């Protein structure tokens, strides 16, 4: 195996309390802290581990999004990726960008770059789609290993332990393949300051979906984005009888 492609998405930081825009077209992103999607950090870490074990020789970090997406590519480079590709999509196209678009972009890049493995996070914490890995595998007609808990190289390909509802499942795949990283796959490393400095000097290529022959025209329309309903204030009841009474009153029992 030689080349690993990792997808890294810039999302609103997990610690930020998200607010809906007054016009209900989306959430407020301006002036809000952003960082790399946590599952993508895990994907990057896994790629670096493969490189450290000499299984991979080069790691390419790809981000699809506006100019600021380069920040998360730099983070990936600081963690240990070798070079970056920024696929620029902005404005309305980006607001309505869907996994179907991203998977076509990743698939095309994987072929262009002759990648042997694509690793992405299992989902992004902003839109929670959980589709990109699956769709990318379909576009390429490559095997997929989703929700990875453990990835081992074998002579024939990969042994993958997956997180499934009932526990863990082990599968074998050939490569090339598409993987998605689950929470317990690894603990991503910190980017150290000297590595952040070095990352500035690593190559970062900018392309457009058009260059890749992918059409990102929106296919959906956002009708309305709403805040989750505010939880109603609770009330204290003096005893069990009162509780039962109240529940009956509310028609709950």
């Amino acid at each position: 195996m030689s080349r690993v492609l990792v997808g890294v998405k810039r999302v609103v930081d997990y610690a930020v309390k998200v607010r809906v825009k007054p016009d209900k077209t989306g959430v407020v992103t301006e002036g809000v802290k952003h960082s790399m999607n946590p599952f993508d950090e895990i994907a990057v870490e896994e790629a670096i581990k493969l490189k450290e074990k000499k299984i991979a020789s080069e790691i390419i970090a790809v981000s699809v999004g506006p100019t600021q997406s380069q920040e998360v590519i730099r983070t990936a480079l600081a963690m240990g990726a070798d070079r970056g590709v920024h696929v620029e999509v902005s404005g309305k196209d980006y607001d309505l960008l869907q996994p179907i678009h991203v998977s076509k972009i990743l698939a095309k890049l994987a072929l262009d770059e002759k990648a042997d493995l694509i690793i992405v996070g299992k989902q992004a914490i902003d839109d929670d789609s959980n589709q990109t890995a699956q769709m990318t595998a379909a576009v390429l007609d490559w095997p997929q290993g989703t929700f990875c808990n453990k990835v081992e190289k074998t002579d024939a390909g990969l042994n993958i332990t997956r997180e499934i509802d009932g526990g863990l499942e082990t599968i074998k795949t050939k490569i090339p393949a598409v993987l998605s990283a689950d929470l317990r796959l690894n603990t991503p490393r910190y980017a150290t300051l000297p590595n952040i400095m070095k990352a500035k000097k690593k190559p970062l290529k900018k392309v457009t979906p058009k260059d890749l022959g992918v059409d990102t025209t929106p296919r959906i329309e956002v009708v309305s984005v709403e805040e989750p309903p505010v939880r109603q204030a609770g009330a204290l009841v003096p005893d069990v009888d009162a509780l039962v009474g109240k529940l009956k009153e509310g028609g709950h029992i």
Partner: protein
Amino acid sequence: MIRLIRSYKFLRLRKTSVQYFSARTNMDLKDIKSDTKSSQLKNSSSFMMNIFRGKMLSAEVFPYPDVLVADEKELILSLVDPFEKFFTEINSASRNDENSSIDGTVLNKLWELGAFGIQVPEKYGGLGLGNTQYGRLCEILGANDLSVGITLGAHQSIGFKGILLFGTQQQKEKYLSKLTTEKVYAAFALTEPSSGSDAGSIRTRAVKSDDGNYFILNGSKIWISNGGVADVMTVFAQTEQVDLATGEKKDRVTAFIVERSFGGVTNGPPEKKMGIKASNTTEVYFDNVKVPIDNVLGGEGNGFKVAMTILNNGRFGMGATLAGTMKFCIQKAVEHANNRVQFGKKIKEYGCIQEKISQMNILQYATESMAYTISQNMDKGSKEYHLEAAISKIFASESAWYVCDEAIQILGGMGYMKEAELERVLRDLRIFRIFEGTNDILRLFVALTGIQYAASNLKFLQRAFKNPANNFGIVSTEISRRVSTSIGLGTIDFNPHIAPELQNYGKKAANCIELFGKSVERLLVRYGKNIINEQYILKRLSNAAIDIYSMVVTLSRASRAIKLNLPTAQHELNMTKVLCIQASNRCMDNLRNTSAESELEMIDVMEEIAREVCNKGGVNTTHVITN
């Protein structure tokens, strides 16, 4: 004219006075002597120096400096998050305080993070950051853990700063990458049992070997940060120097790079301290340590200048650090004020609490504004920031104490609990008023350095007056300047530099600067060289200088905020307005008090009180319950 003749008398005597106070206030004699000779040529570009002549030189303060280019800004912004992450996810300030040490794995992570060589050039493995970028990281240290801050500061802000500033190529090659990437700690060893503020009086001695290849170092140092862990130290010692002109032998301080591996270097146990407990502080002993001649730093006999330059160079970092500490305290206080209900209302609704919150934020704003004015001037290549740096160290350390104390007050009983973390911060930050030049000494330094600069101008003028025909231009400008200021026309105008909304406040600052210049002149005439003994007055003058600097940097920064239409512009404007009212009132009072008869009488009485108490060895009253 009479005034000028009297001042000339003073000026003739001045040389001795310069030498006297330069030793006291840590100034370099050689520089001062050459300054005196070329005083008519040399004009300082420092804003603060010039107010001692009643002049405003705007270049270093207006407009608010903005030195970082886009790339440099982007770089430092990309370092902020990972640096903060270290403190939120790996380090624990309370644990460090509890254990009186930083544990090994945390230190290792700090080394990996690159925190020990922030300003070391990249070719030696450092981050190669400028002062302004360094300041931004200091803020994070200050907001999170001052013990870690001092450990890092003792290492790079003073420990090996001398190698960066004065090191030969060979010294840099030999030490910098070790000190940046190989977990080798550095320390700065100046203070001794009998020599603290009076750093020129150190007794540690280095004697050159007969073959001239090395020095033998003997002596002991106290309270050395990183003293127990450092393998490389910048050590100051007396050395015998021969004056080339006269052949006279004289002791002069020399700086050395001393490795523990030279042998004969030992240290005492870690001191038990009030705060910054996790920072290692020990005595360090030198017993016949053989130091190669190549390890002289900055030239033989230049050690005093080396020491003062290092300290001067690092002071702005304390301002930035403490600006971060104050942010932390403010956040804690505001969290509490927003939630705590008493007498049926959130306490944030009460005037007493609001006044505290405003005041805390005003002080934080001024501290931060000073720190970044200085760091950016340094980045621009300014060499004359010593008054500004000293002022920012004084202002930051006293503001931080006040802000933390008020935060504790807002939290009430909760503020006194360890859990709230403010008690640790209060203990930790207390040291900043003491080390790297006590605030008292720095106040004297500010006043006396400025006065000397003003005096050198008077001397030049005196010469011009001797031959007014040849110097007509100078004399007439000076006369008109004096006349205009003395009848209060005002020659200083802030308006071109500040936002229209701030003009009334700029006027206040301008009035202060004019009165400041006049006060200095009056003091020179009245006391001549004896001004160095008038500490009560020098302190008032210094306080006035500090207030002026705080007004100017905030006026400048708030004007920038307005110009850039920042979302916080109005808030910054408000804080600047309040600060200018407070500072100008205090400043005017202090300036008047440098000569008001009532104040001078009061000072005499205070002198007497202190004398009585010291003679008595304690409180000198008769208890009410006495037979």
